[in-house]
């Protein structure tokens, strides 16, 4: 059943350059698209839950403390507890708030955060659809999330969330330009292959990198790297994270735009922030780090290396399972912890089973792309948390100065140089 499902998707995707719904019959492709959308939703919420746990634990260990340990073994059930708490908490609408806009704002932010995933290519065949304006669509939708934030600030009808909303939207608008320039220079590199015409579609970009046997981050050596660096900085600012998280900084005067929200609506903003982080990192991975391509396809080519790399997904899951079993031995012996140790051991077993399953050849081949793509995105997620642990906060004017006076000129410079380099090499 599994294999047939994927053939269906492949057929749907590869029946000629597909713009939405172009396959043989509308209902069939619609069905597969819906399946994929469901997969994306499921995958994303699991990623957000994992991210929530990871952030708290990694940040804690960076700060000489343990992080959540009480809810479930090593706090593994903490995210679920958080989600439940947020669901149960009372959802207050401020009295003089603009009800309709207040209700719409979190929806707007979440919709934009999720629609970005339509074009994210988890593999040559694994994407909801392959729009030929992939990148343009992603930038457009991510610019819409500014509206959600501005609406949230306005609707709470109090002075500080409004100022916070204006500040964060000003920040997002100004970093969008730097981001756009970096993206353009990456897209420019795609057009330098033999066919001569570049492509905006995400799958096309990764295929271009495969065709040119180089990841764009290493192409025209310093240029690719600089463009990647600009994007990496701009994406952190775009999602209001780490050094650029001024708007909801508690020690500043203006509180964030989502102060008036509570309960489930607030968790929507929370959900949207994490999915925006994942979306923006997946753009970076697709554009510069060769999407689903396994690392060192040229240096360590040859099927022995292919085999090694193919085993890595299974090995990593087994390693995690090993970690779980090791920590079960170190769990306190007190009887009240017995359930937790059992739970941890069960989790370890599940991971081990999944690990072993990944060694089965057809599954191994299938999971390669998704594994490498999500591994690279995970690296970015770790970077986000690392920034939060080490960097103090930028002041608002410094934040704008970095955006306009540093990233923008360098972005234009890199764009021009890439164009020139493209002509000569």
């Amino acid at each position, binding site marked *: 059943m599994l294999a047939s499902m994927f053939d269906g998707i492949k057929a749907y995707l590869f029946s000629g350059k597909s713009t939405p719904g172009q396959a043989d019959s509308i209902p069939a492709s619609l069905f597969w698209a819906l399946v994929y959308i469901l997969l994306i939703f499921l995958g994303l919420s699991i990623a957000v839950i994992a991210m929530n746990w990871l952030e708290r634990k990694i*940040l804690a260990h960076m700060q000489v403390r343990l992080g959540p340990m009480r809810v479930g073994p090593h706090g593994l059930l903490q995210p679920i507890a958080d989600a439940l708490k947020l669901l149960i908490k009372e959802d207050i609408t401020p009295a003089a708030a603009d009800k309709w806009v207040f209700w719409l704002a979190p929806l707007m932010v979440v919709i934009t955060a999720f629609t970005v995933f339509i074009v994210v290519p988890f593999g040559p065949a694994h994407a909801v659809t392959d729009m030929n304006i992939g990148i343009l669509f992603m930038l457009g939708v991510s610019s819409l999330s500014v509206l959600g934030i501005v609406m949230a600030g306005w609707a709470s009808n109090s002075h500080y969330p409004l100022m916070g909303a204006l500040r964060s939207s000003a920040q997002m608008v100004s970093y969008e330009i730097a981001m756009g320039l970096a993206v353009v220079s990456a897209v420019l590199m795609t057009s330098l292959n033999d066919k001569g015409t570049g492509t905006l579609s995400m799958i096309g970009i990764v295929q271009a990198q495969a065709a040119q046997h180089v990841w764009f981050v290493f192409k025209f050596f310093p240029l690719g790297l600089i463009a990647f660096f600009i994007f990496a900085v701009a994406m952190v600012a775009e999602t209001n994270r780490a050094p650029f998280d001024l708007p909801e900084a508690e*020690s500043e005067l203006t509180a964030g735009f989502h102060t008036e929200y509570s309960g489930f609506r607030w968790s929507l903003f929370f959900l949207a922030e994490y999915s925006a982080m994942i979306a923006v990192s997946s753009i970076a991975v697709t554009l510069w780090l060769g999407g689903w391509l396994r690392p060192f396809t040229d240096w360590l080519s040859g099927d022995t290396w292919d085999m090694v790399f193919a085993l890595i997904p299974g090995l990593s899951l087994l390693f995690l399972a090993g970690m779980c079993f090791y920590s079960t031995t170190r769990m306190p012996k007190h009887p009240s912890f017995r359930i937790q140790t059992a739970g941890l051991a069960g989790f370890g077993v599940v991971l081990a089973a999944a690990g072993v399953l990944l060694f089965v050849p057809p599954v191994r081949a299938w999971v390669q792309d998704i594994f490498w793509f999500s591994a690279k995105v995970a690296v970015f997620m770790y970077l986000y948390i690392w920034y939060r642990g080490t*960097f103090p906060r930028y002041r608002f004017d410094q934040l704008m100065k970095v955006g306009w006076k540093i990233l923008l000129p360098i972005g234009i410079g890199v764009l021009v140089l890439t164009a020139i380099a493209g002509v000569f090499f």
Partner: protein
Amino acid sequence: MTDQTTTDPRRYLSHLELGEPDKTFLDTNELVINMGPQHPATHGVLRVILKLDGEKVLGTECVIGYLHRGVEKIAEHRTYTMFNPYVDRMDYVAAVSNGLGYCEAVEKLLNVQAPPRANYIRVILAELNRLASHMLWLGTHALDIGAITPLFYTFRDREEVLKIFEKYCGARLTTHAFRIGGCLYETYDGFEDDVKKFHKFVTPKIDEYEELLTTNRIWVERTKGVGSISAKDCIALGVTGPVLRASGVKWDLRKAQPYAAYSEFDFEIPTCENGDTYDRYLVRMQEMRQSLRIIEQAVGKIPDGPIMAKVPKVMKPPVGEIYHSIEAPKGELGYFIVSDGSTQPYRVRVRPPSFVNLQALDLMVRGQLVADVIAVIGTLDIVLGEVDR
């Protein structure tokens, strides 16, 4: 019957001749806002009224007194020894220094000298206290500017200092460690190696803080050139302690007018030039290292002998008045005691460094941005218990 809460904040700023923000069609109204008294970044109950032109601060006015307990009035109804614990409650972060200042002032009044062993113990505990106070300052200051991690590092190390205090005098924060005439408790056995172990433990830790912040680009950008104050202004405004030294004045009471056993140790006084938040950060980091140096020397050669001078049980200092001040972690902490020959002091006046340093806030913050006000309050290292007494 007007009162701080009901009066319109603008009335507070009326006496300062502040410039009017230039009106543009976008400006709805120039902003006079309250920061505090319940604000995460004001260390305790401090209320700052800011007059803003957009983001720039035109002028500030501090409204204090929320933590006023009338310590000086209570002193007039307590005997000298009974008043000793009250002194710890003023600057609760550096309680040992408060106690040291008060005991030495009364000893001077009684014309009594504490024995050398007591002086050594006092120096060790005072320097440990300076370390703990600077660590707490660094943690909260970095937190205000956004760096979360130093807070946990500094509090973990400060815990070690508090353990030593607890072992010595039973209390961690308001220690009441000294008595008039010397120290009451003999050092517990193992005190010296505890302090030595602590010394070995903390020295690399301070480099760890430096590693995290000193060359951190955003930290430098958020602190360099912020809230700068010149040496002349410092002296005119009576600002003392690390803030004064960061502006270039090489003055420390432990060197200028040595008390306890400070004249027997060699240590430098760190200073910087342009007196901004970054220099104050550097000065305090250096001071931490100098304190460690003093502790190391002091622990090495603690003399034997009595720890308490011959002081009558019921003290009746002769009629007269004296002023004695010590170098507390925040600056010059002075006691002006007037005695009328009875067992209770006639008048005790405490000269708190935080109270006087806070005056310089208005000068340091004018023209800066709102985000810097919080950084400047942090760098002044004020404790409201001491400001309001």
